[in-house]
Structure formats: C-alpha cells, structure tokens
C-alpha cells in the first residue's frame, strides 16, 4: 500500500493543492456520471424503440452495461487509483468465475 | 474379476468393451507413473537417511528436471485424452433413433426407460408395448434408450454392458448400448441397477436385462403384442385372484402391454408377463413363497416403496388366489 500523502512542508499549500485536485477529480466524476446516464438512456431507448431486432439489442445493451460498470468501478470506486492492485486482481478473478458460471447456466442447463 | 453378467471387468457389449479398453490403457499408464515414483521413492528412503549431523547442500531446483516432469505428464494426459474424447462422442451418437423411413417407422430398437421409486418401466414406443423390471433387448445391434425419471433422479446402469446415464426429472437423456451374443449365457440375465441415491430402497432398485437373438426377440414382441386385453385366468383359484386383483390392484398395475394411460400416470409395474419374469420387485427370486411374502408386507423387502399400505390386509386365502393369478400371467407358450 503506497501512501499517497503529498508533502511540501507547508500544510496550507498542501491543503490548497489537494482541494484543487479533489475538486478536479469531482468534476471528472460528474462527467462520468453524465456519461452513465447517457448510456442508460441509450439502452432504454434501444429497447423502447421496437424496430430493432433482439439479436442486435441484447448484445448492444449488454455492452452498454459493461461500459457503465467500468465507470463505476474505475471512477466511482477508484479502482484506477494506485494501491488497488490486489482489489483489481480479485475483482477480475471474481468476474472470471462469474462469467464461467453464467456461461454454464445459459448453455448446459436445458429448458 | 467379478461375476459375469455383472462386472465391468467382463464386458459383454461394445460400450462396455470400449470402456474396458480405456480402463486398461489408463491403468497401464498409471502403473507406469507409480513405478517411476516408487523407484525414486525407494532410492531416497534408502540412500538419504540421516547418518551424521552434516547439513546437506541447499539446492534451489533444477530446470531440466522440472521441464521433464512437466512435459511427460502432459504427453501422458494427451494419450488418454484422444481416445476419451473420441469415445465420448461415439457413445453420444444417437442419430439413428430419429432416422425415420418413408412410412414413418424407425428401424432402430428404441426403449423408453422410466425410473420411479423403486422400479423400472420399459416402454417400446415403436412396438407399442410396455413391460417392467425386466428389460428385453435384441443382441448384436445398438439399442437406443430414452431415459427419464418420474419422481426423483435415478441412474440406469447395466455394468457388464456399458456405463450409466442418469434418469433426470426434467429432461430426457439418450444413449445406446449393445449386447454381444458371444458373451450372453442363455441361462443368465444381466444385472442392472440404479446408481443414483434415490431413497431408502435405492440399494434394492435392481432390474434384469434379457438379451435375445433377433428372432427370439421379435417373437417376444409379437407375443406381447398379441395380448390385447387382460387375459382371463384359467383355474378357479386364479380366477378368484383375478377378482381380487381387479378390485384392489388394477388401479395401479396394468396387465395389458399396450398401456393407454399416459406414461406419467402409470403408478406401478406393468404385470402383463409377470409369470415369466425371473424376479419380483427387481431383486427377489420369482417363486410363490417370495411373491406371497412380498404381497403380505412389501415394506420389509423395499423400505419406503410406494405399494405399501395402498390396499387392505390380505388373508392367506387371498394371497393364494393372487399368487395363482399372477404366476399365470404369461405371454409366451
């Protein structure tokens, strides 16, 4: 675990700097939120607009969901930050098991 | 190597034979692996016992050795994998089951196996006949099976003829077996059994398989088909028995081979050819004494079976009558 503490010796300067950084990060968060809402809208519209075939819509909205989850994990939950190596490893491992499980239940279980 | 007609080590059909060959192949490989290990093992234990207080050299590893014992097992596994995969697909090939002739008939011999607590029903859809507990099949050709269970999961297994397949509750499993005339002793039947824990009497959920040359098999089928309605008993005693049967038993047990009730609603073994079967309830030798005991109190023979307490107490006279009737239920000769 690396400690991300920044130190210039002068606490005031640090605080100012950090505040700015935090505010900037928050701005990014709001942008990702806006994107997420946008993706959600597209997904709903794709389904509501009944002309598209299911063969297109289903993979498409799954893809959108995947992108949203990346936003959540990497931005809201900070998985892109340093110090998240172990969490990443275990989340990926969990996703592999999750994927295999779902694959199995959609293929080798019958009606 | 076990009993003929029972042991997997005395294969009597193509499936069992292939499986046996695979067993031999893999056993040989396994023995070789164990021999290698055993040699190193013995050398180590003999040579490197502690003799003095010297500190041995601390070895980190050896790449050449490590590669050897990674690659050789991979090769051995590949050697087993190839015949394994080939045979998996071979055993799963049931296309012939559905191959229809122009007139809609099917040439393949097909048997629907329905497993219920704790008995087996064998329906021949193409011939339109039903029998129970004793499977009858032709030799030297593939026999195809549709497997299903009516209550809980069971598993259909005739060890000497081939590996098993489950009777699930929600879907039909299909596979085939072949019975070699060469290995069939006409006086012996194959032992079949349920291989999936299904309740108290799981251990007793046995059945028999009778493999007949094609001509005899055809004869059996046509004899069965000839029984169109319940045969009328000939002796007085048997007639009495039939009356009792028609009162207390017919609700569950059919005595005609072309059973009209839907498969799910057939509650008990079909008794059309009961008198010719070698067993009662799957595992008791078929004789009068056993039959009476069974009818008196099925519970002692098959704990948890579904016949217990479904009919009134039977007097000795009633037992005699029923026995006479049931023993007379024959379709051949």
């Amino acid at each position, binding site marked *: 675990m690396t400690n991300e503490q920044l130190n210039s010796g002068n606490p005031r300067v640090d605080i100012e700097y950090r505040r700015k950084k935090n505010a900037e990060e928050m701005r990014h968060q709001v942008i990702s939120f806006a994107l997420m809402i946008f993706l959600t809208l597209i997904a709903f519209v794709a389904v509501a607009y009944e002309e598209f075939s299911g063969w297109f819509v289903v993979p498409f909205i799954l893809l959108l969901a995947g992108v949203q989850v990346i936003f959540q994990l990497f931005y809201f939950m900070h998985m892109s930050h340093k110090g998240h190596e172990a969490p990443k490893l275990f989340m990926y491992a969990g996703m592999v098991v999750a994927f295999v499980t779902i694959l199995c*239940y959609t293929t080798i*279980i019958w009606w | 190597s076990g009993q003929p007609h029972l042991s997997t080590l005395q294969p009597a059909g193509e499936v069992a034979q292939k499986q046996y060959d695979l067993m031999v192949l893999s056993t040989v490989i396994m023995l070789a692996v164990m021999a290698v290990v055993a040699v190193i*093992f013995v050398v180590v234990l003999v040579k490197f016992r*502690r003799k003095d207080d010297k500190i041995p050299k601390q070895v980190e590893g050896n790449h050449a050795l490590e590669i050897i014992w990674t690659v050789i097992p991979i090769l051995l*596994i590949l050697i087993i994998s190839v015949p394994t995969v080939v045979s998996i697909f071979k055993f*799963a090939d049931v296309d012939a089951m559905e191959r229809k002739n122009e007139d809609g008939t099917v040439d393949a011999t097909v048997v629907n196996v329905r497993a219920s607590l704790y008995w087996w029903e064998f329906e021949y859809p193409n011939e339109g006949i039903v029998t129970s507990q004793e499977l009858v099949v032709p030799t030297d050709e593939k026999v195809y099976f549709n497997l299903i269970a009516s209550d809980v999961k069971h598993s259909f297994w005739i060890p000497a003829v*081939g590996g098993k397949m489950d009777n*699930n509750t*929600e879907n039909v499993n299909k596979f085939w077996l072949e019975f070699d005339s060469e290995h069939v002793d006409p006086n012996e039947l194959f032992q079949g059994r349920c*291989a999936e824990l299904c309740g108290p009497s799981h251990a007793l959920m046995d059945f028999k398989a009778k493999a007949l040359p094609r001509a005899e098999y055809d004869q059996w089928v046509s004899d069965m088909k000839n029984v169109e309605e319940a045969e009328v008993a000939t002796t007085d005693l048997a007639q009495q028995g039939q009356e009792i049967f028609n009162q207390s038993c017919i609700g569950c047990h059919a005595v005609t081979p072309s059973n009209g009730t839907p498969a799910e609603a057939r509650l008990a073994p079909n008794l059309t050819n009961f008198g010719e079967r070698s067993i009662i309830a799957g595992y008791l030798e078929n004789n009068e004494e056993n039959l009476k005991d069974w009818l008196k109190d099925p519970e002692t023979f098959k704990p948890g079976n579904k016949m217990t307490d479904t009919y009134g107490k039977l007097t000795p006279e009633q037992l005699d009558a029923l026995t006479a009737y049931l023993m007379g239920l024959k379709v051949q000769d």
Partner: protein
Amino acid sequence: MSTIAQKKGFGATLWDYLTTVDHKKIAHLYLIAGGFFFLVGGLEALFIRIQLLKPNNDFVSAGFFNEILTMHGTTMIFLAAMPLVFAFMNAIMPLQIGARDVAFPFLNALGFWLFLFGGIFLNLSWFMGGAPDAGWTSYASLSITSEGHGIDFYALGLQIAGLGTLIGGINFLVTIINMRAPGMTYMRMPMFTWTTFIVSALILFAFPPLTVGLFLMTFDRMFGANFFDAAMGGNTIIWEHFFWIFGHPEVYILILPAFGIFSEIFAIFSRKRLFGYSSMVFATVLIGFLGFMVWAHHMFTTGLGPIANSIFAVATMAIAVPTGIKIFNWLFTMWGGSIRFTTPMLWAIAFIPSFIMGGVTGVMLGSASQDYQYHDTYFVVAHFHYVIVGGVVFALFAGAHLYWPKMFGTMLNEFLGKITFVLFFVGFHMTFFIQHFLGLWGMPRRVFTYLPGQGFETSNVISSIGAFLMAAGVIVLLVNVVITSVKNEKVGNDPWEDGRTLEWALPSPPPYYNFKQLPLVRGLDAYWLEKMDGKKGMTPAEPIGDIHMPNNSFIPFTISLGLFIAAFGAMFHGDEGNTWGVPVLIFGLLFTLGSMFVRSIKDDHGYHIPKKELLDDKDLGGKA
C-alpha cells in the same frame, strides 16, 4: 493448556475462550471442535462399515443408513477436515509471516463461532426428528422430496457454517497481503502460507455458489419457492451445478493446505530447502485456477452432452500436471537430504504413495467415457478416500504432531505417534484399496446393503476390518494427547531442531503478542538462515515499543447465536399449526443485527501493551 490459562480458574478460562480474539486460542478452539467432529464422523464411518460387513445385514435400517452416510460425508468435510485445516492456518500462518495477529481478530472469532453453531445445529438433527438423508451432495430432486426436517438442518446448518468459513478466508487473504514482516516478500513466504493464501482465494469464490444453492434449497423447502420442482418449471440441474462449482474447489481447499504442511515437513526433516520453490508456488496457483474449470466432472452422467463432457474431461486430467510437479519436487527435496524419521515425517512419506494412488484414479475418473462406468460406484469412494484420507487426514495427523509443541508447549510422545501411524496406515489401505475392485465388480455406492452371491462378501469384510484398525490408531492418538497433556513437559522454541521458518524462532507456545519486535526477514526459510549464520534468533526490524492489541469480545458469540436461533424459526414455521416460527425467525435475525449494531456503535480501540512491560517480560521470552 496455555500457561496463562492454567493460572486462572476454570470459569475464567472458559470465559477467556468464549471471548478470545487471539488467533492462537482460536486455533485451539478449531482443533478441539474439529477433532470432536472428526470422532463423530469416524464413528459414523464405523457404523457404515459394520452395516456393510455382511450381505443383507440389519444393523441399521435403510433410511437410517442414508442419514448416517449423509452425516458422515457432511461432518467429515465441513465440520472436521475444514476446521482442522483452519486450526493450523490460524495457529501457524500469522507466525510464519511474522505478524502479531490476523488482520481481523474479531472476525476471526466470529468465523469460528459461526462454524461451531452451524455444526451444532446440523448435528441436532439426530435428536430432532432425523438427520439429512440425501447424501452430502443433497441432489435436489431427492432432497426436495425428503420428508421431515433433515434436509432443512443441512441447508441452514451449512449456511451458517459456510458464512464462518467465508469470513475466515477473507481474513487470511488480508492478513497475508498486509501483515507480512519487513523483508517477507511474496516469494519468501513459507509454502504453508502460500497454500493458505490460495486456499483463501478459493474459499472466497467457491463459497458464494454454495450460499446461493443453499438459499434456493431453503426457499424451496421452507418458503414455497420452485427452483427445483420440475412440475413448476424448476430444474434440479441448477443445484447440481452450484453444488459442484463449490464442491470441486472445496476438495482443493482441503488438499492444498495439506500440501503446505507436507512441504514444511519434507524440508524440515530432510534438512533441505524445498526443491523448486517457485515451481511449487506456480503449481499451487495453477491447481487453484484449474480447480474452478472442472466441476462438471462430477456430472458426466447427468447428460450435459458430449462437448461439455469432453472439455471438462480434458481440463480435469490437466490437473495431474501441476500436482505431479509437486510430487516430484517433494521427492527431490528429500533427494540428497538427511532424512530423519520422526512421526510427522512418517506421515509425509506415507502420503506420497497413498495420495498418488488416489490421484491417478482421479485421472481415470476424469476420462469421462470411463467415468460412465465408475461413477457412483465404490471405485469413486476408493478414489476420494485415497486422496482425502491419504492426503488431507495424513496431513492433519502430521501437522498435529509437528505443531503440537508450537500450539501447546509440549511434545506428543513419538513412540505412541508411530503406533498410531502404523495402525492407521495399514487400516487405511485395507479399507479402501479393495473398494476399487468392489466398484469395478459392480457395487454402487450409497447402498445400505447388498445381496449375497455377487462376490462382494470377502472384500467388504476386509474393508470393515481396516476401518477398525484406523479407529484403533485414532484411539492411541487420543491416549497420547491425554498422556502428554498430563505430563506437560515444556519444550523450547525449536523442538524439532531443524525448524526453518519464523514460527520456530518463537517460544512454544508464543506469547500472546507473538513478536515483541517484528523480525527482519532476509530470505526464504528466515529462521534457518539466521541459524546458519550462527545467530540464536531473528534480527529485529523495529525497536521495542508499545504493542497495540485488540480487546476480547463476546459479540462474535452472540452474532452467531442469533443466526442459530433464527434457523429454528425458519425451519419450523411451515409445520402445521406452528405459530412461533416466524417470531423466532425475526427475533433471531434481530438479535444478530442488534449484536452487529452494538459492535458498530461501541468504541473498541483495543489496548496497548506498554513498552515497559515488554522490557520486563523476560520469562515470556518474547524474543522476536
């Protein structure tokens, strides 16, 4: 048992254990509880063997046999083998990495109490209308139709115990990642710690499917759901998959720590460093990974189709490769070494041929088209007892002898230990070797009896006699434990003289804070390196200072108790005329939630052992 405990009265000791959060004491608890359940499971095994002694035996009835059989498997796997493995992980792993405790001492205690309450709940079924009777696999069609409350005990009891295991797994993971002493890099961790790490990861991913499966079963049986009822659109195969997605990793959860223990033993008693350490680590990771890709080999006959069967067959057999790497590394650890035949080493040596026997039959089972014959026969029973008893149980015996001094400060008697070994080893092969043939000759498993005249008689007699030899071995071990506890001759920090890893640098048993000063780790086999440099102990990595310690707590007990109570409510609420079920269910859950709430709002920062006390504390000898 521990020196501190002896000075107190019985009541105080009991309270101490009820509230402890010390990993060493929790290890004692796991050892005692797991040991007890091992005896129970073994007794059930003896009942099985007595019933099968002769054809048509009526020692127990058919239904009762199924209960015994189910409880034997369930008890042995969940309540004996796993907790015993956890006992050693708790006792040794933190010491091996130079930590003062695990990452979450409170959760550690919670994990234990959940396991214990789950285990007690499950076993209460014997006295409350019948035990589960659908096999330890509890396949859905049968378990849904099974009458009485047996299966309910199974579903709820395992749910509670499983939760405890999951918590334990997360705890070990964090401990190993965050709490290693300075210098203890990943590639310097002792093999047992490595296996603990991988096993904990397996637990993390394998237990949720079991949790879900058990929930579905609970809902179906107690709350009217229809997951497994084919008539309502349900599907029993769902249960089979969940059980085995969990169940197969579970068997590696058992065997990997065993591999870890043996790795330590081979190195110690050959006086040699583990051969091919990095390939051992690699093989462990690979086994863990492959362990998740092979579960359907238990379902080859279910009818998944040839493609699935082929994939799973090949994946299954592939596990032979990393396991083989391990076997040969152990052999070459001994090669060129200076082998001393102590009791732990005897178990380790016997393990190699025994386990390989089980392993190669595993590969034969993995070859699906052969498995159509083997499946659900005594051949499978032989396979898994060879790997479980010849692997896991041998390791537990070996570990008990090896670590007894570290856990209790006194050595088990070597002579009695060797008697146990001989009896058990002979009995083991007698019992299970012949079962391979029984299976091949056509004897299915899970049968309460068999008919005469099929050629099964003699073999079953041999098998049953073997079981009694094993029992005799176990009894000798019990005697051994009693004798050594009474004698209680204290030993020093490195009683086997060739200890290599950090735990042997500490007094036996270690002081409650483990390390007065965290040690500096300079390489693999840290303590051995120091010894070879002529030093007595580890070089400290920090000056003596205050040590932060967690407070004892009774709350883990009450959290678990709440679930225990709730389980009764859930189970009985559906009975005819039952009025108290739902209130009890709610009360139990609130009790648990309330305990968690108290824990959450109460301040509990633990306490500090002041530096002064540590300096004075000479007789505890807490040298790092």
